[in-house]
């Protein structure tokens, strides 16, 4: 995981997995950005190969926090066919802005 940010926006670059094991690590980094007052956040899934329901739940949690603050969550670069199909299956594309 890597995090890039400036005063207004941030990008969290994901590793290969988002699941039960590491979801809280992502949550910690996300909350640090929120504490800095950043509410325009992009999740970069370029490297992400798999995600489970607990990881998906965390992404929805991020979305909810930002919406409540009048901010915006975007997901970019979903390369993995597995992740694309999971998103489609649970209709996440209808809830979160995916590019």
């Amino acid at each position, binding site marked *: 995981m890597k995090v890039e940010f400036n005063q207004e926006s941030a990008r969290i670059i994901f590793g290969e997995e988002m*699941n*039960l*094991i590491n979801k809280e690590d992502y949550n910690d980094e996300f909350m640090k950005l929120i504490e800095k007052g950043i509410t325009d956040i992009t999740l970069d899934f370029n490297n992400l190969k*798999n995600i*489970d*329901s*607990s990881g*998906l*739940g*965390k992404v*929805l*949690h991020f*979305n*909810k926090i930002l919406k409540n603050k009048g901010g915006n969550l975007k997901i970019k670069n979903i390369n993995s066919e*597995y992740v694309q*199909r*999971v998103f489609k*299956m*649970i*209709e*996440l594309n*209808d*809830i979160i802005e995916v590019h």
Partner: protein
Amino acid sequence: MDNAADNLIKKYNFTLTAQANKINEIINELLKVVNNTDHSIPDIEFRLEIAAREILANAIEYGCKDHNDEIEILFSIEQNKIVLSVIDPGEGFNWQERSFEIVPVLDERGRGLKMINKVSDEMDFNDKGNQIKITFLGGK
């Protein structure tokens, strides 16, 4: 007449200690079995991976108290049917009261079983709720 070899059932047992970083190893083993067997189950790699990932994560998160707790995995494969059964040492859960229909809700939790139900052809639990059995069925 069917070739008798088509109906052979291959059975495998795996044990997972309650460590989430071992889930990928089990999934790779299951996929290896599937790829080395002649079967007619459509789109099985994706469906099995989704289901196994969710089932094993649930078993660890809700069915185990200690990292040394053991989860038993039974996997059987034949030409027209694949069955994955997972038993955890936990207290089980009240599956009769759950809805397994996927709807686009914003809640953080409660999506795993719905995903398993969506990708499998049949999903069953034992009465106690600490064993799940899913079945994938083949074509003609």
